């Protein structure tokens, strides 16, 4: 039996899962920064 597909499958699964797990907080931080920026812009516009 050729073991290569099982080895590649294991490492690919690990790369996808760990990659997503690392990327998720970065994307979340970008979203929150955008929200806070927007909130600050609205607040300063209200103050004139």
């Amino acid at each position, binding site marked *: *039996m050729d*073991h*290569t597909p*099982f*080895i590649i*499958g*294991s*490492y690919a*699964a*690990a790369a996808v*899962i*760990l990659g*997503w*797990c*690392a990327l*998720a*907080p*970065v994307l*979340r*931080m970008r979203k*929150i*920064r955008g*929200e*806070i*920026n927007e*909130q*600050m812009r609205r607040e300063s516009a209200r103050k004139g």
Partner: protein
Amino acid sequence: MSRVKKAFHQFGSPPWLFRFAGILSPILWVACLGLTAWGLYWGVFLAPADYLQGESVRIMYIHVPAAWMSMMIYALMALFGFIALVWHIRATEILAMASAPIGAAFTLIALISGSLWGRPTWGTYWVWDARLTSELVLLFLYLGVMGLYNAFDEPRKGARAAALLAIVGVVNLPIIHFSVKWWNTLHQPASISVVGGSSSIDSSMLWPLLIMAVATKLYYGANLLTRTRVRLVEENRNKRWVRDWIEGKKG
């Protein structure tokens, strides 16, 4: 004020923790990537094939560190949860809840890679063996902790309920660890003994495995601190220090 008490207070300060995590996490990410590249190159290209398992032994370099991490992170999550429940330190609540998705990720990797290793070695992807089943229960515990945390509108209430579940779930850790001794399982017993110091694994395979084990620990540290920073910003979005950081003044 004693040094320990002062350190505890400092640790509990969101701006301090945010800056500390901001300095340490990039260092850990770089170290993690470097060690992972080294460990994978050694394990996949330089280490020999096993005389029984053949080339599929290379799956071990991701499966074993992931399985170790799944248990270590759970123990740490429960410890952080315990500290949060007893001493009401918000920072440890955040650390406990940030640990859950990382632990779940490692548990999922351990299950998938184990399953892919099992097909060529045992002839099946899955058996309801004590080790495999208790590891699957660990994944459900992680998902339970994450679900419970997000089920509350008030994050602190959610974190307390989830911390309690995490503490109760610790009972599963010795079951996972000793399952191969307590029951007659298809999963082989441990090849590496930290306490006894005797390992039945050759050093040509042991070293890349240990490098990967350190790399996964660095991944956990880096990811945990990155998630902690996100949570701190989310919870303190109206505070001056967050506004200053957004405007690029400091942090």
